[in-house]
């Protein structure tokens, strides 16, 4: 039962920060010849060890630039860690910025299938859930309209509806609950909570300790690429509030 869903071992992520971005050949050669290619190493994440058991809901707290999004990207497989390893078990549905996989010229309906396929689901699978997706997103009247004409809230709603309908094993939420109006926010929070009963594992990034407390049972705090606190949601949230109040960290 408590087979870990995510195991991160000694993971580090390094970026080359070049002072100016070189993206054409001419510049590259000029800089190469004149030896002006400077790279500064920047460790966005250092020596991260994290084990998330199946069914755990882990809140990730931290200030801007602490490495939260990078951590989620590495776990979801978008980035490869420079060092160490990441093992995940089961289907991951990333909701890092909802609606990233949409094609603007495509209608909402067509985008549902495209988005589903991006997450690795078949047409048939999405078809079975199509009605519930449309219903949940409250976009029934707009489903044949190209997504470019949607408002950002509508896009976010559609994205959330798809990602939550596919019943993933691991759900990655990157500040997604801060979009949409209060009513939809409440609805999606309830939706996520209803998924807990099925033993879903959640990684949740937020700046709001209230949201973390209401959703998560565990939490970590990231600061400058390191995990500085790890434990139950209550303890860690209390520590985070203290950090914010004392202005420490950043």
């Amino acid at each position, binding site marked *: 039962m408590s087979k870990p869903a995510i195991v991160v071992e000694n993971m580090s992520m390094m970026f080359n920060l070049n002072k100016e971005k070189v*993206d054409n*050949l001419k510049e590259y050669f000029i800089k190469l010849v004149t030896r002006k290619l400077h790279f500064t190493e920047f460790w966005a994440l250092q020596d991260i060890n994290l084990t998330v058991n199946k069914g755990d809901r882990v809140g990730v707290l931290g200030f801007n630039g602490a490495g939260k999004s990078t951590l989620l990207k590495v776990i979801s*497989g978008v980035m*490869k860690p420079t060092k160490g390893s990441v093992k995940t078990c089961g289907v991951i549905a990333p909701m890092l*910025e909802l609606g*990233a996989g949409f094609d603007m010229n495509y209608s909402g309906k067509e985008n549902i299938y*495209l988005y589903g*396929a*991006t997450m690795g689901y078949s047409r048939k699978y999405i078809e079975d859930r199509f009605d519930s997706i449309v219903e949940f997103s409250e976009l029934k009247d707009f489903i044949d309209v190209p997504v470019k004409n949607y408002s950002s809230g509508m896009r976010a709603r559609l994205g959330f509806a798809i990602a939550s309908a596919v019943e993933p094993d691991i759900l990655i939420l990157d500040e997604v609950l801060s979009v949409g109006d209060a009513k939809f926010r409440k609805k999606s929070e309830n939706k996520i909570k209803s998924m807990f009963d099925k033993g879903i594992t959640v990684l949740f990034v937020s700046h709001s300790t209230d949201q973390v407390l209401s959703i998560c049972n565990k939490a970590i705090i990231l600061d400058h690429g390191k995990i500085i606190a790890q434990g139950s949601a209550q303890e860690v949230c209390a520590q985070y509030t203290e950090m914010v109040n004392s202005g420490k960290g950043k």
Partner: protein
Amino acid sequence: MKYLKNLYKYRNLMYEIIRKNIKLQYRDSVLGMFWTFLQPLLTTIILVIIFGNVFGKSNKEIVNYPIYLLCGRLLYEFYSQSTKRAMRSIRNSASVIKKVYVPKYIYPVANVLSNFVTFCISLSVLVCFIIFFVATGKNPPHITGYMFLAPVPIIILMILAVGVGLILSTLDVFFKDIDYLYEVFCLLLFYLTPIFYHLGSLHMTNKYFLTFIKANPLYSITEMFRCCVLYGRMFSINHLLYALGFSVASVLIGILLFYRKQDKFILHL
């Protein structure tokens, strides 16, 4: 084995992207899909009017100039369009690649394949041309059983397009200049491939230049294709081996390059 399993899992994505490309290509245009038919027809008519008097004279060798030209143009158009689209595919899908894990090679490959579908539709123009000239009996193409070998050069061309597409899409992530360079290269390729002229009717004095043209795999592929549908004879084995070798080599280089560099894409998008 792991890769095949991954490909199987994401075959739907491949299918959806192909579907999307085709559906979106002519969306909002009045004639829609009919353009895949109309566009090669109109451009071929223009080329025939312009070059027909100059290059269309040697009917003995090329049998029928409009069909000769159409064969070359269709194949060239497929090659250039699909490689150009594949080249930009990674950049264009940056928003997805940055957020969700997907096998990235799907994008260039799917773009070549969607162009392949439209290419197959546009082959109907060729069928119409052939029927027209056979019916009117004016320089009819030699229709023989070798016609059934026509898919061979087409498939080789597709392999070539996939390989070149993989190479270009990798390079394009790191250097956007490739976009413009390749545009120029494609124009050069259009003139270096015997599309509207016939190699035999050019009185080439420079031997090196001739070898240069013959080294172009598109030359071998179009010649093979014309042998099947126009000359009605078996294509030369040398052409087959050269084109096939070139295509397979480009795919191997493409896979190797793409595989080695794909983890760095995210840092440059």
